[in-house]
C-alpha cells in the first residue's frame, strides 16, 4: 500500500512538472518591446525622485492617460524632446510621469531648472533596473498607457512632432 502511494506520488509529480513545462512553452519569455503594446503593465514600482514613497500602478490608474517618459540629464535627445513634453503637460487628460534613469540627482535637478519641469510626478531609477521591467533599452523612451494600465504605444527615441500629434489626438478622444 505504502509503496503504491509512493509510486503514485512520483508519477503525479512527473505529470505536474511536464504540465508546467508544457504551459510555459506557450508563454512569451523574450522581451520585445513592440509586443508589449496592448498588454497590461502588471508590476509598477518606482521610487519617487524626492519624496520617500513608491509610485505604484494604483497611482497611475487615477489618471485617464499617463505618459511615462524615461530620461537622463546626460542625454542629448532628451533635451530635444523636452519642449514637446512641456507642450504635452498642458493636455488635461494626460499626466506625465518622468523616470530619471542612471543619473546624478543634482544634474537632473539642474536640467529641470534650466529647461522647465514638464512632469506631474517624477521617479528615479538610479541603476536602471526598474526601467528594464518596462522593456526600456535606452533613453529617451516613452510609454503611453491608459487608465487600465494598458500600453497604447511605445516611443523609442525622442518624441517627434508626429508623435506629439498622435498623443494629442489619442488623449482628446
Amino acid at each position, binding site marked *: 500500500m505504502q509503496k503504491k502511494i509512493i509510486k503514485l506520488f512520483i508519477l503525479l509529480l512527473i505529470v505536474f512538472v511536464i504540465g508546467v513545462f*508544457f504551459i510555459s512553452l506557450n508563454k512569451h519569455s523574450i522581451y520585445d518591446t513592440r509586443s508589449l503594446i496592448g498588454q497590461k503593465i502588471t508590476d509598477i514600482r518606482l521610487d519617487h525622485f524626492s519624496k520617500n514613497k513608491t509610485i505604484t500602478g494604483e497611482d497611475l490608474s487615477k489618471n485617464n492617460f499617463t505618459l511615462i517618459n524615461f530620461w537622463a540629464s546626460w542625454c542629448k535627445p532628451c533635451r530635444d524632446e523636452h519642449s514637446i513634453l512641456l507642450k504635452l503637460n498642458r493636455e488635461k487628460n494626460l499626466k506625465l510621469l518622468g523616470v530619471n534613469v542612471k543619473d546624478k540627482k543634482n544634474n537632473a535637478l539642474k536640467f529641470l531648472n534650466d529647461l522647465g519641469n514638464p512632469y506631474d510626478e517624477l521617479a528615479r531609477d538610479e541603476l536602471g533596473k526598474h526601467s528594464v521591467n518596462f522593456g526600456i533599452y535606452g533613453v529617451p523612451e516613452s510609454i503611453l498607457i491608459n487608465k487600465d494600465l494598458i500600453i497604447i504605444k511605445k516611443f523609442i527615441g525622442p518624441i517627434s512632432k508626429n508623435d506629439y500629434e498622435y498623443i494629442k489626438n489619442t488623449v482628446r478622444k
Partner: protein
Amino acid sequence: MLSNIGNTLLFLNILLGIFIIYFSFKNLQNKKISISKNIYHICLFQSTFIIICFLTLVAAFIISDFSIITVYQNSHSLKPFFYKISGTWGNHEGSLLLWVIILTIFSFLFLLYNKSHSRNYRIYSLIIQNTLILGFLFFLLFNSNPFSAISPTPKEGLGLNPILQDPALAIHPPLLYIGFVGSSIYFSAAIASLLTNYSGRLFAHSIKNWVLISWSFQTLGILAGSIWAYYELGWGGFWFWDPVENASLLPWFAMTALLHSLIVLEKRNFLYFWVIILCLLTFILSVTGTFLVRSGILNSVHTFANDPSRGLYILVFLSLMIFGSVLLFFNKFKNSNYNLNSNSKETFILINNWFMIFYLITVLLGTVYPIFTEVLTDHKVSVGPPFYNTVIIPIVILFLFFMSVGPQTQWIKNKFYNLNLLFKILIASIFINFSIIYLFKSYSLISNFIIISAVFLIIASLIDLYKLFKIQKMDSSRVISHLSFGFLILFIGLNYNFSLEKDFNLKLGERKKFDNYSLEFKDLRLEDFKNYKAVIGEFKINNSQRNLNQSLYPEIRIYENPSTITYEASIRSGLLKDYYITMSNIDRSDYYNIKFQKKPFMMWIWISVIFISLGGFLRLFQNAKKDY
C-alpha cells in the same frame, strides 16, 4: 545539390535504424549465442552514413552553399575558415545533427566493445538506442532539417553570431555532447538490463567505461563553456549559476554519483537499482536540459530562435522517455537489504551519492523554480548566486572532509582510518589557512572553513599519492581527480576572497585611483577588421607597490553580418592573477563605463578542472589496458 545528398542520407539513416530494430527482434527469436553479422554491418553503415551526412553539412558551410537555409542563416562568405567549420554546430539544426551522430556512433561502439556480455542484453540495448536515434532523426528531418533548401539562392549569408566566433566555443558543443549525449548509451543499457535481468557486476562492467568517457568529456565541455563565458561574454568570473550552465551541471552531478556507485556495484554487487536510477536520471536530465535551453523557456545565450514546436517535440519525447523508464522501473524494482558497515568504503561512496543528489536537487530547484512561479503565479523571479551560495557552500565543507576520508576506508570492513593522522592533517590545514590570512588578508568565517577543508583534502590526497608511489598500486586516477578537486575549491575560495572589482565612468585622458592601483584611459581608436569595426580603448594599470605597469585594450566591436555590437573584455592572464577590463559606451556622452577586475588564480581554476577530467581519462586508459 548538397541539400539533396544530405536529405537522402538522413532518410537512409531512418531506414537503417528501422532495419536494425527489425533484425534485432528477429535475432532475439533464434537460439544462436552470437549476434548476426547483418546487424554489425547495418550498424557500420549507419555510422558511416551519418558521418558522411555531417561532412556534407560541413562542406556546405565551407563552400558557403547559401541554397541551404541553415548555411544562409549562420554563415557568411567572408567568415574565417575555422569558424565556417565550427558554424556547422553553432546553430540549432547542425547541433542536433551532432546529437544524432553521437547517438549513432556510441550505439555502434557499444555493440562492438561488449562482445563478452549476454546477447539479449546487447540486442535490447541496441534496440533502445536505435529508438532514441529514430526519435531524433524524425525530429531532425521533419522539424529542424539542417538541409532545407531555399530558393532563389541568396547571394550572401547572414553570418554567424559573432559571440559564437571563438575557439573555446568551437570545441564546447562537441565536448559537451560526447558527455551528455553519450550518456544515452547507458540509459539504453539500463533499460536493456531491466528487460533482460542482466544485472549486477556484469552490467556494471559493461557500462563503466562509457560512464567514464561521458563524465570526462562532460567535465571538459563545461570547462570550455565556462572559459568562453569568461573571455567572450565578459561575465567576469568562472560560474554564474545561469540556467544554461546549470543545465550542463545537472547531468554532471548524476554522472559523478553514478561513477562512484558503479564501483560498489562492480566490487560488491550492491546498489543495482540505485545505479539503474542514476543511469536513467543522467540521460533524462540531459534531455530536460536540452528542452529547457532549446525551447526558449529559459532566456539564454543558447536560445537560438524561439520556436515552440521544437520545444513541444522534445517535451513529448522526454515525457515518453520518462514514463517508459519509470513504469518499467516500478515493474522490475525489488527491495533488497544491504548490510553496510558504517565505516566501510561502500558507506562512504553512498555518502558521496547523497551529496551529489543534494547538489543536483538544489541546482534543479533553482533552475526550474522561476519557470514554475511564472506559470503558477505569473510572477517573474530570478534565482541568483545568493541562493546557491547559501545552500551549497556550507555543505561543500562537509563534503570535502568525507571526500578526504572516504578513499582511505576498506571494503566491507568496519575499520576506520588512522585518526591520529587525520588529526595531524587537520592541524596542518588550519595552520595553512591562518598563514594565508596572515600573509594576505582575512576573510569570512565560512571562507575559513572552505579553505581549511579544501587544504585538508589536498593534504590527504597528497599523502595518498605518496603512498601509491611507494607501493606502485594503480589508483592514481582517483587521487588525481580528488586532489584536483581539492585545488579547485581552494582556488575558488581564494579567488572569491581576493577579487577586486571596480565600476566607474571615465573620459579619454582621465585617471582613476583606487587601492594601490591607478587606471589611466590613454587612447581610443577606431580600426577596421575583416568582418567588423572596433573601437579600441587603451588603459594603463599602475600599481605603486608592485611596480606593475600594463596596458589593456578592451574593445567595442561592431559587426556587419549580422549587425551586432559586442563588448570584448581585455584580459591580461597571469599565473597568479588576471586583470580584466570591459568598456561600454554610455549613450550620447563622452564617458565610458569601465569595469575593472582583478581575479586571482583564474588560470588555476581552469587547470584544476582539466586535471579532474584527466583523472577520468587516465582511469579509462588503465581499464583498457586491463581488459585487453
